[in-house]
């Protein structure tokens, strides 16, 4: 365990990015999608990553999720250096430590809602006997207990996103990453989804959950987030603590 890792753990950070960069080469040009960003996110904090299209917020979220690896720098999630993890360990990190919600829901259309939610449990090799209860619990949490046998195409956009949230929560992660979770929804449904995320952030019982949400809507960020980090051209433009 490195010194920085230990300190991030001891200081109660859920995520700590240390001079993280993600550069791409496109022909001769070097694209600096994320450029030397350092960021600390406390456990239980609701952080909004705000920025226009191409500012690097989704790339940073992918790095935090362990879907991508940084070109340089380090990211610690719950005290573990993601850059030092093998691809197997990163897969376990994605399965156990975090839940991801996408803008376009990303439910598998061939499966029922129940089967979609069960997928992370299959990957976690949870005993089959425990799975139905966990799936039911997650779906009831997002008020979709009556739609378990429906396929995604039979659900509204809001229901699909709630199903995606149930899938992200089924392994009970303490960090929820949401990439434009209301981007494909109308205003009213978007509000419902944000209310749900807010509930998940501070559940009636137990410790608060860390939420990192990518959005380009400042009003949404201001209403729900504890802190707003604004990105521009792959770097942090400003930080704003709201609560």
């Amino acid at each position: 365990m490195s010194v920085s890792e230990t300190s991030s753990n001891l200081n109660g950070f859920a995520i700590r990015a240390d001079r993280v960069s993600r550069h791409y080469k496109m022909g001769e040009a070097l694209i600096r999608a994320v450029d030397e960003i350092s960021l600390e996110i406390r456990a239980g904090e609701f952080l909004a990553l705000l920025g226009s299209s191409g500012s690097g917020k989704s790339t940073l979220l992918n790095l935090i999720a362990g879907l991508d690896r940084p070109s340089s720098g380090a990211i610690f999630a719950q005290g573990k250096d993601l850059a030092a993890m093998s691809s197997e360990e990163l897969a376990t990190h994605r399965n156990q430590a975090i839940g991801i919600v996408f803008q376009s829901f990303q439910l598998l259309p061939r499966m029922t809602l129940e089967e979609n939610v069960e997928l992370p449990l299959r990957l976690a090799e949870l005993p089959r006997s425990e799975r139905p209860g966990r799936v039911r619990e997650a779906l009831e949490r997002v008020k979709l207990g009556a739609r378990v046998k429906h396929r995604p195409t039979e659900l509204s956009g809001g229901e699909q996103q709630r199903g995606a949230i149930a899938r992200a929560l089924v392994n009970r992660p303490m960090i929820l990453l949401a990439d434009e979770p209301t981007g494909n929804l109308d205003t009213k449904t978007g509000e419902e989804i944000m209310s749900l995320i807010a509930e998940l952030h501070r559940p009636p019982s137990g410790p608060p959950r860390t939420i990192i949400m990518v959005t380009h809507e400042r009003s949404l960020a201001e209403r729900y987030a504890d802190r707003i980090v604004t990105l521009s051209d792959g770097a942090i433009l400003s930080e704003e603590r709201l609560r």
Partner: protein
Amino acid sequence: MKTRDLTELASRNLRESVLRNSLTTLGIGVGVASLVALLSLGVGLQQLVNKSVARAGLFDTVSVRPRQNFPGAGGPRATRNASDLQPPRILDDAARQEISALPNVLEVNPEVRFTAEARIEPSSQPAGQLTFVAGMAQSSVSSGTLDGMTGKFFSSPSADEAIIQGDLAKRLLDAGKAPESLLGQDITLKFAQRQALTAAQDQTQQAANLSPEEQAMGFSIVPGEKKFHIVGVIPSSDSGGGQVGFNNAGIYLPLDVAQQLEVVQGSDLREVMNETSGQGKHYPALNVRASSPAAVAALETSVSQMGFAAFSLIDVTRNLRTFFAIFDLFLGIFGSLALIVASLGIINTLVMAILERRREIGVLKALGAADRDVRQLFFAEAGVMGLVGGLFGVALGWAIGRAIQFGTVVYLKRQGLNSPNIWSVPWWLVLGAILFAVLVSLAAGIYPASRAAQLDPVEALRYE
């Protein structure tokens, strides 16, 4: 991911693109079917030959003859092994006793085989038919030699009864009559009989008009004739059901009866040449039955070391097995070609699936699937296609084999021939074909599975 989950997900994925996956699986099935059909015919033919040889009792029989040291065209025969150095011996009662005492010997019977003229009375045919007549031991009834025979075996070892071969029966009968119609009729055999000279005859040789050669031989040759009751008819040899082997003949008589006929055999003339004709009873050949085919080789060696020529079909069948092993290998290679072609279909299907399911792979990885899980999922899909294709192919191959067998039976029956079973699907072929199909499918899945596993999840999630 656990195997059961993998299999469930793979099966679900395969059911989604049901037409394409079914066609791919069908391709594997056809490949396996061609493999099974070809090999089942190869195995069937091998079993047919083995059965024919075994039925004739050739696997457990050693034919023993006096060794002949005739110089051939190239001079005296070269010595092949140590047993050839033993001096040649006469095959007499002492030798028979000695051979009977060898381990693993069930019985030793003299070979009685001669030419005779056969005639059915009354017959429209002006002359009888020349044929070979052989003595048949009582043990032949249980050896399978007479499989397919119509009628029954000899009622006793001393009965004046005959079993006639189908080909000869056809020649003896008027056209259009079935060989089986001879059952219950009498057949007359004319043959050259050996008559021993009595002491009185020796003294009055001039009066008896015996030739000096007969006097020198110690026996005279007189025409003999005897009637036998036909009790059995063996199927024609061209039908695959007739007897083959050391003692093939047109008419079979009980061995004791055939011996008592004292028919002149080829060995008598040899004895005359060797001037041994006056030295007691000699056998032209003895058929030695071993307790099992495994004991034949040792028995053959022992008999050779006693100074006799021994012959069995062990060497022939060994070559036969080699031939069929090579034959089956080639059939297997040709049958596998179709399966190899089908495996290209698997590669194509899975590569298409990767393109179509790019986002799905991205989602799986985002939810925590490791590269290994994705690779195993595609492997499982290839394996399931191979397994289903293998099962279907075995069933199809079995059906094709049955159809070929049925067609062969119909064709042979129309030709008036018996219909042997030329098709066999042993359990090892069924299991082997399914296993082979799964292995080929898994091998075909290596490239697509690796490609799917290496997909960048971020790129895959962006894919529209």
